[in-house]
């Protein structure tokens, strides 16, 4: 946070998946529909939203795991476009996956899993160098050297996630997309892994995009938080501001729905319970995507998508009626 240099800039990113609706017809599923944001060096940007809102797709498309339908991704002042850009970029930006069970190859030893990125990018000269680097990475995440020859199934969920994190650190990246890295873990283990993310950030100067649906975890780890709904970003603000003073009606109800682990607060808490479900992204409503569940919706909301505007410094909201309802 010390220097506010922009590390990554995403401009109007779109990712459409084409879904077959008949023998010869298909329809675009707009998983991400025009999202723009920046991430500063050394900061953690939290990305929250309900399942199907496109938050995971944003993370994956940023790393070109999916080819963007349109839009630009700039890294350190350089646009990532050609194949060689992408290969270079993947040495700088890596990913930690949600499920520590399916994201590790059961037929590889821990040292091969962690060493694979080193092999792919040719980051060592001698076998000894490779081995030393693997052991160094394992010590970063609190695994000891005797674990190196074992297989993933011999570890608990929390330890597997540590292996996944060590793998993502192998190429010595600046930026890591963390896609729900703690949601598959038990509460008592979650805190260990969250602290590890904190410590690694301090030690290695990492920048995170932290995708999660657990809002208390995101609040804890993030400097700024972005809220997504149906493929669009509806609000982006510093973490404390979005919790104390959410402006978008969707953020308001999302945050009020979080169960607070304190009986007195929980009983007094007035929840804004939304009616209905998220519409299918195949039939997204016209205009503002949230209007079908929003109690403030007017005709204007059906006609046009509100602009993603900066209301106060660093606080962006996409809502036509933001001034009236707050």
């Amino acid at each position, binding site marked *: 946070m010390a220097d506010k240099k922009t590390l990554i800039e995403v401009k109007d990113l779109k990712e459409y998946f084409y879904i077959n609706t008949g023998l010869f017809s298909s329809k675009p599923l707009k998983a991400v529909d025009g999202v723009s944001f920046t991430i500063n060096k050394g900061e953690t940007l939290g990305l929250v939203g309900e399942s199907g809102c496109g938050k995971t797709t944003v993370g994956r498309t940023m790393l070109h795991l999916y080819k963007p339908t349109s839009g630009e991704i700039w890294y350190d002042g350089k646009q990532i476009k050609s194949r060689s850009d992408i290969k270079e970029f993947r040495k700088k930006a890596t990913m930690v996956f949600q499920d520590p069970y399916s994201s590790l190859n059961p037929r590889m030893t821990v040292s091969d899993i962690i060493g694979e990125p080193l092999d792919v990018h040719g980051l060592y000269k001698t076998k000894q160098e490779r081995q030393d680097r693997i052991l160094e990475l394992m010590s970063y995440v609190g695994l000891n050297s005797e674990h190196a020859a074992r297989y993933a199934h011999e570890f608990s969920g929390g330890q597997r996630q540590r292996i996944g994190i060590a793998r993502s650190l192998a190429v010595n990246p600046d930026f890591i997309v963390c896609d729900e890295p703690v949601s598959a873990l038990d509460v008592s*283990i979650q805190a*260990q892994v969250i602290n590890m993310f904190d410590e690694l950030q301090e030690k290695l100067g990492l920048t995170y995009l932290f995708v999660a649906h657990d809002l*208390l975890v995101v609040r*804890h780890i993030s400097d700024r938080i972005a809220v997504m709904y149906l493929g669009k970003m509806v609000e982006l603000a510093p973490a404390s501001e979005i919790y104390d003073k959410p402006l978008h009606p969707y953020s308001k109800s999302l945050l009020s729905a979080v*169960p607070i682990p304190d*009986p007195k607060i929980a009983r007094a808490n007035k929840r804004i319970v939304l009616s209905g479900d998220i519409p299918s992204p195949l039939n997204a409503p016209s205009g503002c995507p949230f209007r079908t569940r929003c109690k403030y919706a007017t005709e204007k909301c059906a006609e046009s998508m509100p602009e993603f505007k900066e209301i106060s410094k660093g606080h962006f909201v996409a809502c036509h009626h933001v001034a009236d309802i707050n």
Partner: protein
Amino acid sequence: MALLEVKNLQTSFFTDAGEVKAVNDVSFTLDRGKVLGIVGESGSGKSVTAYSIMQILAGTGKIVGGSIKFDGQELVGAGEKVMKNIRGNKISIIFQDPMTSLNPTYTIGHQLMEAILLHTDRDRKQAYERAVEMLRLVNVNEPERRMKQYPYEFSGGMRQRVMIAMALACEPDILIADEPTTALDVTIQAQILELMGSLQKELGMAIIMITHDLGVVAQICDEVIVMYAGSICEQGTADEIFYNPCHEYTKGLLRSIPTTDTAGRKLQPITGTPIDLLNMPKGCPFAPRCNFAMKICINHRAERMPINSDHAAACWMNVKHGVQNGEIEIENDEPKNAEKGGETVG
């Protein structure tokens, strides 16, 4: 008389690797109209406790000891015939995953009516009416049309509503909810919890809420049981558990969850890894992960100790504190253990 009385329940799974004591000496009572929360991490035995009450354990699982009394009637060893009358009729259960607990090949209406026809003496027409009424009760729009649809046409939250409708169709006295909102998004979770809360008040039933989410517990539970490695480490009213935790595991859990106050600070995790139920330690199962473990914790499992009329915990630290502030006097040989335990290990 309590509606449900569980005493010294022991359930084991007999696997090739040996006996796994999934539930070890669990006792609690549940009164009419109360919401009891059972909290614990995976493998703590919270779901097995529920399955034992319903006697729907998997093939290798068996209740090896203890008693479960429903309304005064003993259920352990009561036989399938009695249980068939209890299940669905008196005690209903909803499962964690609404995606897999409905049959994809039958319509929602068929599955709802099946439960009603099986447990009551309504005819098909009455059962249909009851099913529609139940769907309306759980806020499913256009229930008549929805009756003809298949589970794939429902969203996750809708399916969980159908499961609740099914569980409540026969007006059970107890509803067991096994992580009912874990698979759902927070806004949908809020809808379902709100619905369960209002139905509970309306119908006056008791709920056993099994969850790992302390936020959910804080929101709807009157009483709480905290489980670790198959046994109860602490039980009491929600306020007592949250504001006056007396077991190191409960304290650790409450410290380790991020709240609005922890932003920018380090969390205080519980160290170590969850326990292997096949290799249970001799003493307190939490001792290997406990920062305050004493000699006595490693050799002797703590008994359930009353803290006050609403609260009990199984932790030797309470004895230590008691001795230190003079509440417990050392007279004869027995509490000497506690004195010896005063020095911490490691």
